[in-house]
C-alpha cells in the first residue's frame, strides 16, 4: 500500500496537527516528515499540513489524559531530538496510547515505547549537560551571554532552569546551530534571533566583553587546574564526562 506523506513545518504544534490529520482522515499508512527534510518522491500521496494552534491543543489535551503529565513530557522531549523519522516513532506510540485503555508509557517491551524512551533519555542527558556547560560571559551591555550548539533542540527545555537561577541578571543563551536564543530581560524570557559577529565565540575579544570578564575566566581556568590531583589522573573518564564536542563552550578548556 502507498504511504501518505504528511509534510509539516517542523514545529511541535505542526506535528500535533499532522497527528490530528491522521485521525481526521483515517490515513492508513501515514508518514510524517518535516518540510525541510522532504524530497520529492514519486508514487506517493503528499499532503501539506497547516499548523493550527487550536487543533494542536486538542491533540495535546487528549494526549495528556491518555499518557499523563510525564508521558506527554516524554513525547515532547523525544520530538525535540529532531532525529530523522522520530515523528513516526512518536506516531506509533500515540496510536498505541489511544487504542489502549490503560497507560502504556511504561510498556518497555513495546518497540516504539522503548525507542521513544531511549531518545527521551538522550535528550534529557543533553538538557542536563547544557545546564552544566553553559558559560556566561559578561558583555559591556551588562548582559550575561552564552552560546551553545547542542545536538538536540534543548533550548526550550532549559529555559525554566535558568530563569529560576538567574532571576536578578539579564542573560542570553544563544543556539548558534539553530540560530535563535533566549533573552531574559529581568521580567520575561523572549525568543530572539540575532546577527552575531563571528568573534563572539572567541573568549579573548574585548570588543564585546568587560575587562574583568577575562580575569574571571582566567581565575576559573586556574581553579580548574589546581583542583586536579595528578596522581589520580584518568583522562578516559574525563573525556567520557566532558565529551570533546562540548569543549568549545568551556572557558576552562580554552588554550589562551
Amino acid at each position: 500500500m502507498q504511504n501518505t506523506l504528511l509534510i509539516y513545518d517542523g514545529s511541535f504544534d505542526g506535528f500535533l496537527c499532522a497527528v490530528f490529520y491522521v485521525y481526521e482522515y483515517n490515513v492508513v499508512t501515514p508518514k510524517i516528515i518535516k518540510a525541510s527534510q522532504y524530497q520529492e518522491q514519486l508514487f506517493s500521496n503528499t499532503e501539506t499540513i497547516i499548523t493550527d494552534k487550536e487543533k494542536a491543543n486538542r491533540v495535546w489535551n487528549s494526549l495528556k489524559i491518555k499518557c499523563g503529565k510525564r508521558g506527554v513530557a516524554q513525547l515532547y522531549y523525544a520530538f525535540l531530538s529532531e532525529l530523522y523519522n522520530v515523528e513516526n516513532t512518536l506516531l506509533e506510540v500515540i496510536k498505541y496510547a489511544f487504542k489502549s485503555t490503560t497507560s502504556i508509557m511504561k510498556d518497555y517491551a513495546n518497540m516504539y515505547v522503548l525507542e521513544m524512551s531511549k531518545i527521551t533519555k538522550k535528550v534529557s542527558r543533553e538538557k542536563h549537560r547544557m545546564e552544566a556547560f553553559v558559560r556566561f560571559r559578561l558583555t559591556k551591555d551588562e548582559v550575561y551571554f552564552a552560546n551553545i550548539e547542542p545536538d538536540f533542540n534543548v533550548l526550550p527545555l532549559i529555559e525554566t532552569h535558568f530563569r529560576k537561577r538567574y532571576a536578578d541578571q539579564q542573560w542570553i543563551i544563544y543556539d548558534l546551530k539553530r540560530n535563535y536564543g533566549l533573552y531574559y530581560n529581568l521580567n520575561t524570557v523572549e525568543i530572539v534571533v540575532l546577527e552575531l559577529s563571528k568573534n563572539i565565540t572567541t573568549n579573548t575579544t574585548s570588543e564585546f566583553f568587560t575587562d574583568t570578564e577575562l580575569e574571571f575566566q582566567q581565575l576559573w581556568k586556574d581553579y580548574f587546574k589546581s583542583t586536579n590531583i595528578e596522581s589520580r589522573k584518568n583522562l578516559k573518564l574525563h573525556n567520557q564526562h566532558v565529551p570533546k564536542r562540548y569543549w568549545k563552550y568551556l572557558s576552562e578548556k580554552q588554550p589562551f
Partner: protein
Amino acid sequence: MSFERIKEKLNILADAAKYDVSCSSSGSNRTNKNKGLGDASSSGICHTYTEDGRCVSLLKILLTNHCIFDCAYCVTRKSNDIKRAAFKVQEVVDLTINFYRRNYIEGLFLSSGIFKNADYTMERLVAVAKKLRLEENFNGYIHLKSIPGASDELMREAGLYADRLSVNIEIPTEKGLKLLAPDKNRADFIKPMLKVKNEIIQYKSEKKLIKSTPKYAPAGQSTQMIIGATGENDMQIMYTSNHFYKHFNLKRVYYSGYVPISNDSRLPQIGSAVPMLRENRLYQTDWLLRFYGFNIEEILNASHQNLDLDIDPKLGWALRNLHEFPVDVNTADKRMLARVPGLGMRSVHKILNARRFNKLNWEHLKKIGVALNRAQYFIVCASNQFERRDLTPEHIKGLILQNSKSKYTSMLSTQMSLFN
C-alpha cells in the same frame, strides 16, 4: 579586588582544598526568593570534571592554609614548608558570586586550616556564609566544613546559613587518629556533629508547628575518611561508616584513597599508588547499604573482613549466598530483585513496570538494559533456556570475569602487579 593577588591566593588555597572529596551540591531545598541570585532546589549539577575524572560543582577552597595543628596526612600541616595565604571574607564572597553568575559553579565549599583556635576560625567561615545569604541574597549551595572543637553557638549559626555541614573523621579508627593527628581527638569531631544532628531534629519538629522556622542545614551532614593511610581493614572502615549513618543521620560518608604527600615514616611512601580500586569498592558497598537494602553484616563480617578487589561487593555477596538464587524476575519482590548482580535500581524499576504488561524473557531483559553477562547465572524468566548446570561459585566467578571488560581491569592489573 586586585586580580594578581586573588589569583595567587586562589591557586594556593584551591590546591590545598582539593583533597576533600565531597563534591555533592544536591539535597537542599533552598529556592530562589525575591528575585535573588541562585537556586539550590534542583538536584546538583557538575559543571565540569577534573582530569582525574572527579566532578567540579562547587568552588572548593580553604579560607586559609595557616594551621596550628600537625596532622601527618595533610598538606596544610604546621610542619610542612609551603607558601601560606589567607582570603578576606569579602574576597571569598566576590569569587563565589562571580563564578556563580557565569554558571561555573553550584555554590561554595569552604574549609580552613585552623588559625589561632577553633572558634576564631569557625567564626570567619560563618561570616562568609552570612554575607552571601544576607547581603548578596544568594540562594546557591553553601557547604561549610566545621572546625573540630567549634562551640555549639557557632555551629547553630553555621547551620542557619549553610546547606550542608561536615566534619571529617579522616581516620576510621581512634588508634589511627592518635597516631597521625596527635593534636586532634575524636571527641572534638563528635561534639559539633552531635550539635548539628540535634539542631536538625529540632528544626524538623518546629517546622511542623511553625511554617516560617528558618531552615537549618537542609542538606544535612557528611564526613570523609582517608583510606589506606593506616592499616585498618574494610570491615573497620564500613562499620565506622555504618555507625555514623545510624547515629548521626549522616547524608553521606566519603572515602578518599590516600594520596601520599609527605615522607613520614608513619605513612605510605611518596610514589605509592593511590588505592583507587579499593576506594571504589567501598563506595559500592556504601550504595548497597543506602539504596539496596543490605545490612553491613551481610557484606563484611568476621569471616569476610575485606572486600574483593576483582569483583563488586554485590556479586561477592551473591556468590557466597547461592542458596538464595535463582530469582524469578517475573515474580520476585523488589528487595530480592535489587540483590541480583547485574541489576541496578533503574533496571529493577523497569522490570517491575514492564512485567505488568508482559511475561519478561531474555530479549526483554536485554532491551531493558540488564547486564545479562552477570545476571544470567542468578535469574530465571519466561524462557526455558536458562542456566541449568549446577555451577560452583568459583566457576560462575570465572565465567563472569572472562566475559566482562571492567573499566577497572587495567587498574586492577597494575595494583595486583604490586604483589608479584
